């Protein structure tokens, strides 16, 4: 054993120097974008040798950790308001998008066959419309045979960004929802059962006849669930596709959103999917280590430039180019180390 000690020590020293030699950046937060961040990190490490360690602990945890400066960046599914950003000395930008899609399990109804107006969707989740053959549903779906079956609402049981986006939409379009329920990652649901995670909701929806729930777009697509068509702000009927999510983001008024605080639900544009959401990255405006700060921004810059195909492969929606330009301008303007701008490109 004694003879081995020098070897052990040399090995340890080598290991630590090797570790210190490669740059590694760390982040924590939202679970929703985790698969695409992991995929990007993998490809980025192969190209540049820079390691990214992302812990998907939830948006709340991500915000707490970036505030405590235990990570280089935080990630959240819900944006922080300008006031909060300034109070914590943070900036944020949207990095990737997704959307929420209502899914149903009703005998005889195929994907994208059922059409729901905003009011109908709100009234179903408020527990006011309780049967599938309700005259209001029939009026929006002439020619569709609707069964005389009770509606079971399925919602998320865990706090989640998906619920935040979904309730934010209902809050915008229904005064009653705003008064009775509101917007949050977990709300006091007027009706229904709760599943844990997208997989819990989808299992319940596939299990319970006559149910309606909401899941991430990618999840609905990969599990071939029965999605519905929604009526957007312009009054058009739209289906959930990558292009309808991008339409919502492209038509959104980012230029007049202080601190990129913009929720992509109920955006104008005839092709816009009404329940779209972005996932945000948070970093400190004043950075101690300029090299580290540059490494973080370089990663996200690389993701904007080369990550679109990978994101689409996982059914995520890339940020439109006009928004990416605004984000990079913000980096150059706001993120500083020792009074110097970190991002000069």
């Amino acid at each position: 054993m004694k003879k081995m000690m020098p070897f052990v020590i040399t090995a340890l020293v080598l290991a630590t120097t090797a570790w210190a030699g490669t740059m590694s950046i760390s982040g924590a937060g939202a679970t929703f974008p985790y698969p695409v961040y992991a995929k990007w990190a993998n490809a980025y490490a192969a190209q540049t040798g820079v390691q990214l360690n992302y812990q998907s602990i939830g948006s709340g945890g991500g915000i707490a950790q970036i505030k405590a400066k235990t990570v280089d960046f935080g990630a959240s599914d819900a944006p922080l308001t300008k006031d909060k950003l300034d109070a914590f000395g943070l900036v944020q930008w949207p990095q990737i998008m997704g959307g929420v899609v209502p899914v149903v399990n009703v005998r005889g109804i195929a994907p994208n066959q059922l059409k729901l107006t905003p009011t109908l969707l709100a009234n179903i989740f408020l527990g006011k419309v309780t049967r599938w053959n309700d005259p209001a549903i029939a009026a929006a779906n002439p020619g569709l045979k609707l069964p005389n079956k009770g509606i079971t609402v399925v919602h998320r049981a865990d706090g989640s960004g998906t619920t935040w986006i979904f309730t934010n939409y209902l809050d915008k379009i229904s005064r009653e929802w705003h008064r009775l329920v509101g917007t949050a990652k977990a709300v006091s649901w007027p009706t229904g059962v709760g599943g844990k995670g997208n997989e819990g909701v989808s299992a319940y929806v596939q299990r319970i006849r006559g149910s309606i729930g909401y899941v991430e777009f990618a999840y609905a697509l990969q599990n071939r669930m029965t999605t519905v068509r929604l009526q957007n702000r312009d009054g058009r009927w739209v289906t959930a596709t990558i292009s309808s999510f991008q339409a919502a983001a492209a038509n959104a008024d980012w230029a007049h959103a202080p601190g990129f605080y913009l929720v992509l639900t109920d955006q104008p544009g005839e092709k816009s999917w009404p329940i779209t959401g972005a996932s945000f990255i948070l970093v400190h405006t004043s950075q101690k280590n300029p090299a580290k700060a540059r490494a973080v921004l370089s990663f996200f810059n690389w993701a904007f430039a080369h990550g679109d195909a990978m994101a689409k492969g996982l059914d995520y929606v890339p940020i439109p180019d006009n928004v990416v330009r605004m984000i990079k301008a913000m980096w150059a303007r706001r993120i500083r180390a020792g009074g110097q701008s970190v991002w000069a490109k």
Partner: protein
Amino acid sequence: MKLSIFRSSRGRGDALFHGAAVGAAALVLILMAGLFVDLVIGSRPSLEKFGLGFLWSAAWNPVTGNFGAASSIYGSLVSTLIALVIAIPLSLLIALFLVEIAHPRLARPVGGAIEILAAIPSIIYGMWGLFVFAPYLADHVQPALQAVFGKVPVARALFSGPPMGIGMLSAGLILALMVLPFTTALMRDVLQLVPRVLKEAAAGMGSTTWEIFRKVMAPYGSRGLVGAGFLGLSRALGETMAVTFVIGNDHRIAASLFASGNTIASTLANEFTEASNPLYLSALIELGLVLLVMTLLFQLAGHLWLGRLEKNTRGGR
């Protein structure tokens, strides 16, 4: 001379052992106290805002910041009750079978199988419960229960509502399955400790297996049997993942066992990660405090009961 050295080194070893044992035991107490103090500190905002009313308020609204523990406490108690009502008699029967009835060649593999059940991680029970057990329950068991009890006044309310396969009953059944191996293994060990002489004497007087159990084994092992029950209770009360999968996760107190509900543990598992608002977080921590106090109270009640049992059996002898 040599002797004294030997003694002193022995004394030192003893002192070391003594110190280590006391330290290890004290560690448990310190951890327990630290946990309690930490939970109280963490739940202060919620304690101050809601006071004792937290315990019987059924509200749970993260948007308006109005929280109450009633639905979670109710769900924890009811699901645990269902689990114990099923698991305790069943594990007693299995233990008796293993000790008294089964041939050792059969008892060993059955006992082994039960120990393997105890080693299955709870998430597996949860997934199995959601994807296999719940559909079966919804298609076969729940409609049958409704058909049988549909006209019985009180039972009808217990089994009302659409049979979804998820809800309080499913959670209780899964819990029963998870508690079963623990209580069975303990009860088997307790029953094996009953001296052969006593059993043979009873058999010699013409007692049947049932009578031997009733009059000899049960009184002899009463302490251990009740202890096994309480261990099962603590396990059911704190079980998290499996329950979260099948209980339906709704902050509501419903009369029907088919309806969805929640438990303290499932609420924590569901909502802790995304509870960013301080009051919300402290309400969740207070739920943890409530669970800790509930477990302590049950342990206390168990000890009191055991004490009385012991007195009675001694008086009887």
